[in-house]
């Protein structure tokens, strides 16, 4: 596949992520902050998000598996996940966290377990999408092309 085709495929793929609500404008901000002095900025931030989220999801699973659930602790973890997903623009993960927090407040064990499943699902979805997108970018760069900037004019 030649570079032009790859670039078009990347643009279409990235646009679909915005259209489907996986990513929001904050992700665009990250891309805009990337420059020659820090060409791997987006990859670095996204990697931090993956590491951070996986740890938090483990902590949440354990916290909700206790005989006496400490909802304050659960809420603290969700708060952190909400923050980091918001910082990278992972909109659906962020929204799932917002719902999660309201059930923590109610101390509703069944609802919070469902929320955990929901957050996990959204996380793995966006992780998959971001990895695909970053792989496409790598292929373009390896072929000597440049990453096209996305215009959100739709």
């Amino acid at each position: 596949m030649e570079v032009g085709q790859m670039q078009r495929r990347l643009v279409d793929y990235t646009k679909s992520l915005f259209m489907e609500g996986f990513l929001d404008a904050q992700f665009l901000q990250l891309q805009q902050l990337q420059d020659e002095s820090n060409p791997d900025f987006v990859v670095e931030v996204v990697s931090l998000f993956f590491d951070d989220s996986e740890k938090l999801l483990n902590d949440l699973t354990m916290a909700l598996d206790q005989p006496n659930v400490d909802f304050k602790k659960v809420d603290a973890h969700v708060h952190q996940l909400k923050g980091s997903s918001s910082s990278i623009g992972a909109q659906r993960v962020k929204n799932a966290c917002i719902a999660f927090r309201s059930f923590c407040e109610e101390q509703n064990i069944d609802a919070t377990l469902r929320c955990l499943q929901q957050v996990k699902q959204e996380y793995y979805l966006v992780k998959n999408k971001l990895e695909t997108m970053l792989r496409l970018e790598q292929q373009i760069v390896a072929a000597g092309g440049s990453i096209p900037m996305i215009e959100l004019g739709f």
Partner: protein
Amino acid sequence: MVMAASETKFHVLAVDDTLIDRKLIEKLLKTSSYQVTAVDSGTKALEFLGLNNNDHHDVEVNLIITDYCMPGMTGYDLLRKIKESSSFKDIPVVTMSSDNIPSRINRCLEDGAEEFFLKPVQLSDVNKLRPHLMKRRTQTNVNKRKSMDEIVSPDRARARYNELEVK
């Protein structure tokens, strides 16, 4: 020996316990041509400023931007400590939070924060910092000119910490 104000970059001390947010705020600030030191707690921030010891400190910090929700010392606690310190009360402090809680925002602003940013912080927020910094610099230069007439001893060299990340 007077340094022209336009030659020296403003030095911002950023405080946030989350690595992602620290990385983000650092990039936003550097993109806006600030010199940045990022630390992960209020305690480390105070240590960096030299508040916890009585030695002379050679650090010049022009603005502190801090997250609100941090374990141990919150951003609000840090704000109070800075404003209660005779050496540092004039350093402008900006607080940030991912939660939009009006009572929290008002409390910070009432107790001396110049601005309160909602996370995720945008470049447009960082652009709001400059007036606070320019105002202080003008005031400091006026004071310096006054005291230069009275002081005969040579300037003490000030150490500059360039892009130091304190973990």
